[in-house]
């Protein structure tokens, strides 16, 4: 017999919206991170009214609700760790309503981020946040996780482009946060509180985004270095020279070797680090800036500096950067991808610490990431069937977090806390910081039904990557 709440829910929003079959439930039990948790029902919602119905019912019957976009999350946000309902937002009809005069877009939560990029471009505008999953992920998921991307260096992340939200609270009430204006200091900034709250405070059902004029031209530069230190120096010298590139990415030698083995892309394999830069702006000014940046790279002893002359040549460089993820996956099948972030000046120190960790736990650790904003992606390649190896990986990950925090950094630059990093929260924020967050959570969600088991660790909880 179906649970009483399932029947109640089916009566309110229709049977076809509520899936309870075995195959249905199992196919919403995972995301792009670790762990599988079986929900009791999958509910596909397509309107704010339906979300209200779900939340009212769940709140009355005390059933956990976990919102989910396309399940690309790398920190466990959409995992129904306490069972209950997976609230699938991905089938909500896509809608991007641009007001060119205001430079804003009103979007529905199920809209793919790439669709917003495309719609903005039609008006000569740009929505800057560019997570690498933009062609798959929904804006609802990006908002909940406060997604970043390479352009974060110059343009910031998702939260910097949200000016208004419609949210259904855990008790099923509809609330508006922010509005349609760029400046807005009316009351607490609940908009920014919701963005990045990982679905534990409510369900985002609409958002107003800020757009900017699309820069007319871009120029790419690639430079390689014999040591991590000189690469780090080149990055900080560039950033203090009065030039702010749109992107400043770096990959280490292990990544470059992996890419060349996977799909030869013309990356130098003899360098300890490769830095890839994109400048954007007016054609004339970026040409001046490109010369300055190249000069800096050379003066600091770059092994090679390449300024591609055609858009195709530039695209090839960025394609090689994109190849890093699939290429390193060939080393071993399981990829533990972290996003510990440090103050920019600490990048060389952090990479030195990562080298020590690689040695100490004898794990296959490679590093790439958004060097310009200090957001590194240390990736450990392992095999989740090897329990002994995974134990070492757990320890290594713990030490990566510790290193980031000791260097004045943070656990997560853009992936979120979710299930994976919750046990490290107190190390970064202190007991009071975590307690204040928890009080906010309790005030918003008195029955604790909204995406439980995320952000806040349970007593004794620790990082587990094995099937124990």
């Amino acid at each position: 017999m179906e649970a009483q709440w399932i029947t109640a829910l089916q009566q309110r929003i229709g049977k076809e919206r509520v899936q309870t079959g075995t195959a249905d439930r199992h196919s919403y039990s995972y995301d792009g991170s670790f762990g599988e948790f079986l929900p009791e029902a999958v509910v596909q919602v397509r309107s704010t009214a339906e979300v209200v119905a779900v939340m009212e019912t769940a709140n009355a019957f005390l059933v956990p609700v976990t919102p989910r976009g396309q399940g690309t999350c790398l920190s466990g946000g959409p995992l129904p760790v306490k069972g209950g309902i997976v609230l699938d937002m991905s089938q909500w009809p896509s809608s991007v309503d641009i007001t060119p005069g205001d430079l804003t877009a009103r979007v529905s939560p199920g809209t793919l981020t790439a669709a917003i990029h495309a719609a903005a471009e039609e008006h000569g505008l740009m929505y800057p946040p560019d997570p690498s999953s933009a062609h798959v992920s929904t804006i609802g998921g990006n908002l909940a996780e406060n997604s970043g991307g390479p352009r974060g260096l110059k343009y910031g992340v998702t939260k910097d482009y949200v000016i208004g939200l419609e949210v259904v609270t855990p008790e099923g009430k509809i609330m508006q946060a922010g509005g349609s204006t760029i400046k807005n200091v009316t009351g607490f900034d609940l908009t920014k509180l919701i963005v990045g709250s990982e679905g534990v405070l409510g369900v985002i059902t609409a958002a107003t985004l800020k757009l900017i004029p699309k820069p007319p031209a871009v120029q790419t530069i690639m430079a390689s270095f014999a040591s991590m230190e000189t690469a780090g120096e080149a990055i900080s010298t560039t950033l203090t020279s009065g030039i702010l590139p749109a992107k400043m990415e770096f990959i280490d030698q292990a990544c470059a070797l992996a890419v060349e083995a996977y799909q030869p892309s013309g990356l130098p394999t003899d360098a300890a680090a490769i830095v890839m830069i994109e400048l954007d702006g007016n054609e004339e000014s970026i040409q001046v800036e490109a010369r300055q940046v190249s000069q800096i790279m050379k003066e600091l002893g770059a092994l090679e500096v390449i300024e591609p002359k055609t858009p195709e040549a530039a695209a090839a460089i960025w394609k090689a950067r994109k190849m890093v993820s699939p290429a390193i996956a060939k080393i071993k099948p399981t990829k533990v991808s972290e996003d510990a972030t440090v103050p920019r000046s600490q990048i060389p120190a952090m990479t030195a610490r990562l080298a020590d960790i690689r040695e100490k736990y004898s794990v296959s650790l490679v590093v790439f990431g958004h060097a310009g904003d200090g957001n590194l992606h240390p990736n450990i390649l392992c095999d989740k069937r090897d329990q002994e190896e995974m134990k070492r990986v757990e320890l290594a990950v713990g030490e990566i977090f510790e290193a980031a925090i000791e260097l004045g950094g943070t656990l997560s630059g853009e992936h979120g806390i979710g299930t994976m990093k919750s046990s490290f929260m107190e190390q970064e924020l202190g007991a009071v910081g975590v307690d204040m967050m928890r009080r906010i959570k309790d005030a918003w969600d008195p029955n604790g039904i909204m995406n439980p088991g995320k952000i806040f660790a349970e007593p004794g909880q620790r990082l587990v990557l094995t099937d124990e």
Partner: protein
Amino acid sequence: MSNPGTLKERMNYEKSFDCVQCGYCLPACPTYETMETEKHSPRGRIQLMKLAAEGKIGLEELEEPVGKCLGCMACMPVCPTNVQYDQMLEGAKRVIEDNKQKPKLQQAVEHSLLDTLIPSAAGMNTVGNLTWLYQKTGLQKAAQKLRLSTLAPLAMGEFEKVLPPQPSPKERSARPAFRPAHQPEKARVAFFTGCVMDSMFFAINEQSMELLAIAGASVIVPEEQTCCGALHAHSGRHDKAVELAKQNIQMLEELDVDYVVNNAGGCGAQMIRYDHLFEEGTVWHERALAFTNKVRDITQVLADLDSLRFTKPVNERITYQPSCHMTNVQRVTEAPRALMQAIPGIELQEMNDPNFCCGSAGVYNLVQHESSMNILDVKMKDAGSTSTSTIVTTNPGCLLQMKYGAEKAATGQRAVHLVELLMEAEPVPKDYKL
């Protein structure tokens, strides 16, 4: 019910760990778009196959998700970790087939099509000849008027009215076994006729061989060839697929040719993967590799020979519906487009999302008719909203589906095989002097 161990072995369970569940396959999957739920996406299906192999869910949970997969393989080129989805899918289908859990109707259709008709050239010729008789005698008109054809098993009737006129049995049997090149010989090829192409689109096969000859290839039609086995492999009839592959491999070994050329994206995709049917290190695996090295789509050979000159402009705007198996398995995408654009007067206008499957997918449009029609609706919206008069395809299933789709959606477009279009432009050998 088979034990999960069989599924583990057949779907290559250990390789399923290559899937990191990133979801990059979701936007590429036609059934995820039309069925709007994760169990009908590649990522969902892989998860379910894995759980079934581990014995955590029953095999019956796989039937619908696996049965509704088109097998278009659009998920494979976009997969960042290169998951071998085709092998997993075929393995799962094989285990399901062995356990006969399919609906009775689907079993009946697959049995009559795949176990008796299609592997037999005689059987397929009979189909062609009967269709000819049916069309010639005026029965076709009568049946259409009386709506008799809609009573045909499943949806076969719906496709009947878009079938081309069939050649007479006499014309069929008069086909020469060898055609010399129309210019100094540049290549020697064996022509793979394909079951559906040869029975339903006999004339296109004739045109294909003519084109090859004009382009400088001598063409042999080996009598010993048999069905490629694609439909068998896709429906889980592994043993039959292996048997057919062996026969074709042997056939080619007897011949002194540069290539075995086909004009059906689906056949080419099956043949180019013959090595996957045999265990690495075995003699048959070696022999299969020698075969696959010679498999070419006709567009690849024509583009490589680069020896055609078109004498008659075709003043039309066209759009191209690529065969999924040609794009995603054979990875042939440039040659067909280059050939179309070589025709004077042709303007190629790409439709939105050309790589989205048309829903034909082997016998999918027969056994999963409703799902197929939902996918076709999406395709016809994209094809119909171009300002073109012709849809060009490179596979018989797609061709039938496009002919049917254009009629159903009343787009006013005609659908042709690329070979037909090339012939309309009256090709001659490049160096030919008038």
